[in-house]
């Protein structure tokens, strides 16, 4: 690594490029990504065939590389040609313009700037998904993981308790939301004909999701009341028990399919719906943890006695944070059920718990950005490693273990989520001003 870095540092051309890229704001990168995706959409498939692949690789060529190592050079060329090069070129060459635009947008209002960025991001993802349905599924599952991870971070990171009940909350959310949508809007063998006209179904879907979230919150009460009298390992044990109780409860309820699972959920969670749900979740959780009410959870975590002596109602703070987190776990479960159109209790077991915990700790405790990166990163890794089949469950843990040895605190731990900082222009003047 070192000699390469040295070459880069000494090469004036590369230096110039690096400097330009550093000056590119997020807006420029998003524009670059959008153009790259458009380029892939236009000529991705033919070029991939020329390079010896069947079609444009689904996930940045990693799956192709794992399946047939002969194609590694082709896949690399493809990634450089269609993703790295166009994005960097556009970001680098438009840096000046984009900085002006980013500054202008922030000048109008943070919200407008945020919406423009989100719009660009969504457009990019949507076009990227147009080429391959599998990509859309991965994106949807990744965004649902973001919601689950962020909500677990509220408990394990911000509140500093170790909760294992998230799969249980997700199961509650998934089943309650599914029962509502299937009972009300779907012709089903068990529940019979729809009670309401299916036309209004998609509009009622948010209500079903919220109901699922609230059901999870009620479940959280059952965990919180006995375990929040003291601190320590009690919550970990009780919450783990809760996950198993929910799982076996569902397994024994024949009316909702028991261990065979529950199906027929309408496909009401396409990419835009999941994306919007994730954005709302991130916005609300980020706003909560920045407020003094939310930061009280961190005070309780760092020293509960001191928090109590400084007017913080510690019991209420813990309750609110826990129920709040459970709500979002429930929402993520509801979305999950309506992405797959099928859920079974086996999904919400230890494996799910391990997955979400890994996402939280790898991304970094006490950090909104960390949870987003952790969730998307691990979800992508899981999909990328799928060609390894059973070996995936060896390789993935090893990657996580090695990673945690290098960075024990996770990728981005203990940072505040500052939207303005992320959206700001990158020229030096602005930095001094802001």
């Amino acid at each position, binding site marked *: 690594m070192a000699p390469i870095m040295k070459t880069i540092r000494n090469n004036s051309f590369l230096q110039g490029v690096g400097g330009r890229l550093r000056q590119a704001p997020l807006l420029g990168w998003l524009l670059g990504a959008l153009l790259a995706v458009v380029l892939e959409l236009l000529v991705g498939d033919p070029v991939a065939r020329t390079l010896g692949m069947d079609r444009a690789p689904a996930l940045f060529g990693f799956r192709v590389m794992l399946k047939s190592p002969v194609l590694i050079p082709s896949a690399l060329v493809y990634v450089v040609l269609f993703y790295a090069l166009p994005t960097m070129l556009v970001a680098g060459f438009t840096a000046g313009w984009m900085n002006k635009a980013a500054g202008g947008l922030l000048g109008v209002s943070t919200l407008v700037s945020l919406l423009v960025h989100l719009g660009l991001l969504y457009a990019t993802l949507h076009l990227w998904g147009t080429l391959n349905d599998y990509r859309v599924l991965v994106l949807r599952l990744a965004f649902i993981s973001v919601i689950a991870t962020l909500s677990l971070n509220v408990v394990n990171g911000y509140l500093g308790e170790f909760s294992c009940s998230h799969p249980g909350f997700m199961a509650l959310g998934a089943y309650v939301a599914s029962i509502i949508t299937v009972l009300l809007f779907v012709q089903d063998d068990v529940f019979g004909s729809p009670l309401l006209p299916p036309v209004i179904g998609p509009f009622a879907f948010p209500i079903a999701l919220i109901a699922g979230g609230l059901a999870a919150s009620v479940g959280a009460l059952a965990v919180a009341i006995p375990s929040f009298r003291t601190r320590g390992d009690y919550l970990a044990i009780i919450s783990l028990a809760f996950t198993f109780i929910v799982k076996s409860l569902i397994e024994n309820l024949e009316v909702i399919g028991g261990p065979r699972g529950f199906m027929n959920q309408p496909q009401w969670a396409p990419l835009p719906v999941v994306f919007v749900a994730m954005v709302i979740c991130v916005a609300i959780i980020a706003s*909560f943890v920045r407020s003094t009410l939310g930061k*009280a959870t961190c005070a309780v*975590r760092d020293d509960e006695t001191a928090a*109590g*002596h*400084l007017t913080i109602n510690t019991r209420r703070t813990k309750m*609110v944070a826990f129920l709040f987190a459970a709500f979002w776990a429930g929402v993520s479960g509801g979305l999950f059920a309506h992405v797959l159109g099928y859920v079974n209790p086996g999904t919400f077991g230890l494996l799910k718990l391990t997955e979400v915990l890994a996402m939280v700790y790898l991304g970094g405790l006490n950090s909104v950005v960390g949870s987003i990166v952790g969730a998307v990163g691990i979800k992508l890794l899981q999909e990328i490693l799928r060609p390894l089949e059973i070996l995936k469950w060896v390789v993935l843990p090893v990657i996580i273990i090695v990673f945690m040895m290098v960075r024990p605190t996770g990728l981005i731990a203990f940072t505040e989520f500052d939207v303005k900082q992320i959206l700001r222009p990158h020229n030096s003047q602005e930095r001094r001003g802001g």
Partner: protein
Amino acid sequence: MALLRVQDMTHHFGGLRAVHDFDLEIEKGDLRGLIGPNGAGKSTIFNLITGMYTPTEGTISFKGVSLLGRRPYEIAALGIGRTFQNLRLWRHMTVLDHVRLAHYSKIDYGLLDAFFGTARWQRGEKQIEDLAYELLEMMGVQRFAHEVVTNLPYGVQRKVELARAMAVEPELLLLDEPTAGMNPEEMVEMMGVIRQIHDEFELAIYLIEHRMKVVMDLCEYIQTLNFGEVIAEGTPEEIRDNPVVIEAYLGEEDEG
């Protein structure tokens, strides 16, 4: 009516009698000291007043309201601020957040405001932040506002803790060894700060100290505690020459 009135307070930890028949009356603007050898029960008295423990016997009232059975956060919100012997700061948080959080009881926005970042939330946070900066400025630590507390020198951490206690907007301030671990320079500075907040806010201050110089210089009235019982009380001059006090302290040195 006394600001704080403690009558016949007794507390047992299992079979151990930590505090016995303790009486105390503090008026607005008093500056009182509590001294005594290690393990005499001084911090226990603070913990009993602030609601960390409930006394086995006796009564405590503040501004005429009984404090018995109330939880610490309620007692603090009534107007009793405190610092701790071994600095209980929140190690992952910034100086500014410490002081902001102590305004918790005065937050006038609800959870929904916090979720959706409403105008009311923004106004509330701005108000809290302004108050926090004011306090940090008074303690002379505003330039550390965005530092995480664990990165700061010990003397600054003590001041942050004091600023945090002041953010409760107390009428009575309990200081548990405010100069412990400080060098002489920091100690003199801290004494200045204590005197300043006492004069400026007409604050009643009750402090535990090991350093005789601090207690003798600051306090108008001193109680000496040994084995949970008051063995002497009076003005600094009376305490200085009291043979019982001298014996309690010399006895401790013999043991050590």
